[in-house]
C-alpha cells in the first residue's frame, strides 16, 4: 500500500466527520453580525481600538475538546481553592513585568527551587527538553507545567496563579475587552484561534500569552520572547 493511497483513504474516512451542534448556525450568524457591526463602528468612529475577534459559543457538538466554559489545558480545573493551596507562590500577586513574586523570568532552576515556591513535576522533562515545575501548592498532574526552565535561558515561562494580576490589572477571569483596552498600545496580536499575545509594558524581553474562551481569559502566561523550550 503506497503512502499516496493511505492518505487518500484516511481523508476519505468517515471518522473525519464531526457532529454539528444544533445551534451552530445561529452561533455563526451571530458572530458574523458582530463582525459586521464592529467594522461599521470602526469605519464611522475611526477610533483605533484594537479589534480582536471574539470566540463564542462553538459549533461542534460538545463532547469534543474541552467545554468552552472550562479552563484550558492546565491543571487549574483541578486546583482546589487557590487562596488556601497556592499560598506559597503568593508572596506577591502581581504577575509581571518580570515574574511572580520571587520567581523571575530568566532565573536558574536551582535558584527557583531554592525559594521553596515550586516543585518538580512527575514528568520532570518536557517534550522540548526543558524542565517542568509546578507551584508548591498545586495539585500536580503528570506533564502539566506551570513553570518551564531552559538550561540556557533559565525560567522561560510561568503561569499566572488564580487571583494574580498584571500591573495593568489583567489576570485569569479578565474579559477579553479588558485585555484589549489595557494593551491597545502594545498591539494585541492574534496567535492561533483563542490565543492572544501582547508585549509586556516594562519588559521588552517578554510576552503575555493568553488563552481566551467565550471572551474570558482562562489562562495567562508570562514568557521570555527568546527561549528554546517550545516553538
Amino acid at each position, binding site marked *: *500500500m503506497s*503512502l*499516496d493511497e*493511505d*492518505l*487518500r483513504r*484516511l*481523508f476519505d*474516512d468517515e*471518522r*473525519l*466527520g*464531526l457532529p*454539528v451542534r444544533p445551534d*451552530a*448556525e445561529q*452561533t*455563526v*450568524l451571530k*458572530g*458574523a*453580525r*458582530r*463582525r*459586521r457591526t464592529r*467594522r461599521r463602528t470602526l469605519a464611522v468612529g475611526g477610533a483605533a481600538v484594537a479589534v480582536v*475577534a471574539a*470566540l463564542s*459559543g*462553538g*459549533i*461542534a457538538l460538545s*463532547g*469534543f*475538546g*474541552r467545554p468552552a466554559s472550562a479552563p*484550558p*489545558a*492546565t491543571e487549574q480545573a483541578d486546583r482546589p481553592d487557590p487562596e488556601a493551596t497556592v499560598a506559597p507562590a503568593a508572596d506577591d500577586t502581581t504577575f509581571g513585568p518580570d515574574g511572580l513574586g520571587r520567581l523571575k523570568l530568566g532565573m536558574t532552576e536551582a535558584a527557583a527551587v531554592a525559594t521553596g515556591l515550586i516543585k518538580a513535576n512527575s514528568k520532570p522533562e*518536557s*517534550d*522540548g527538553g526543558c524542565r*517542568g515545575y509546578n507551584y508548591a501548592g498545586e495539585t500536580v*498532574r*503528570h*506533564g*502539566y*507545567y506551570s513553570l518551564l526552565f531552559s538550561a540556557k535561558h533559565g525560567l522561560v515561562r510561568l503561569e499566572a496563579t488564580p487571583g494574580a494580576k498584571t500591573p495593568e490589572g489583567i489576570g485569569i477571569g479578565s474579559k477579553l475587552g479588558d485585555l484589549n483596552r489595557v494593551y491597545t498600545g502594545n498591539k494585541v496580536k492574534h*496567535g*492561533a*484561534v*483563542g*490565543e492572544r*499575545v501582547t508585549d509586556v509594558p516594562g519588559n521588552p524581553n517578554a510576552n503575555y500569552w493568553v488563552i481566551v474562551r467565550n471572551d474570558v481569559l482562562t489562562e495567562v502566561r508570562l514568557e521570555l520572547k527568546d527561549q528554546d523550550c*517550545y*516553538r
Partner: protein
Amino acid sequence: MDEDFGEFVRAALPGLLRYGHALTGNPHDAADLVQTVLEKVGSRWAALLRKGAEPIAYVRRSMANAHVSRWRRTRRENLVAELPDISIHHDHDRLEDEPLWQALRALPPKQRAVIVLRYYDGLSEAEIAESLGVTKGTVKSQTSKAMASLRLRLGNLVGDGGDR
C-alpha cells in the same frame, strides 16, 4: 441576506468541519477554524456573492490559508502535546489510533495544508500554489518534505520501515 447565509452555513457545515478536522488534526481546532472563517465570510457575504465567488471553494481556501498563517499554532500544539488534557480528545477523536493520523499531526501547518489540498481536495501543484499564494516550487518542496517525514514516522511506527 442572513437567511441566505444561514442556509449556506447549514448545508456546508458538516463538510467544512470534516475539512477542518483534516486540516487541523483535532476536533476542537477544527471547530474554531470553521467558526472563525465562516464568521468572517458571513460578515462580507453580500460583497462576496456580488464578486461571483463560489462560496464553498472560497471558504475552504480561506480555511487552508488561516490554518497556515496561524503563526503560533505549532507552538500551541507543542504545548498541548505536553499536556495530557489532550486525552479528552483521545476519547473522542476516533482517528486517534491511526498511525498516519498521528504522523500527520507532527507536520508543520504549511506542509500539512499542502498534503490536505493535494489528497483531500485533489488539487494539482499549480492549484495548491494559487490557493496558498506560494510558488509551485514551494509546493513541491513542502510536499516532498512532508512525504519524507510521514514515511520516516510511519517507518518508525511499524518498526522496520519496509513495505506495509
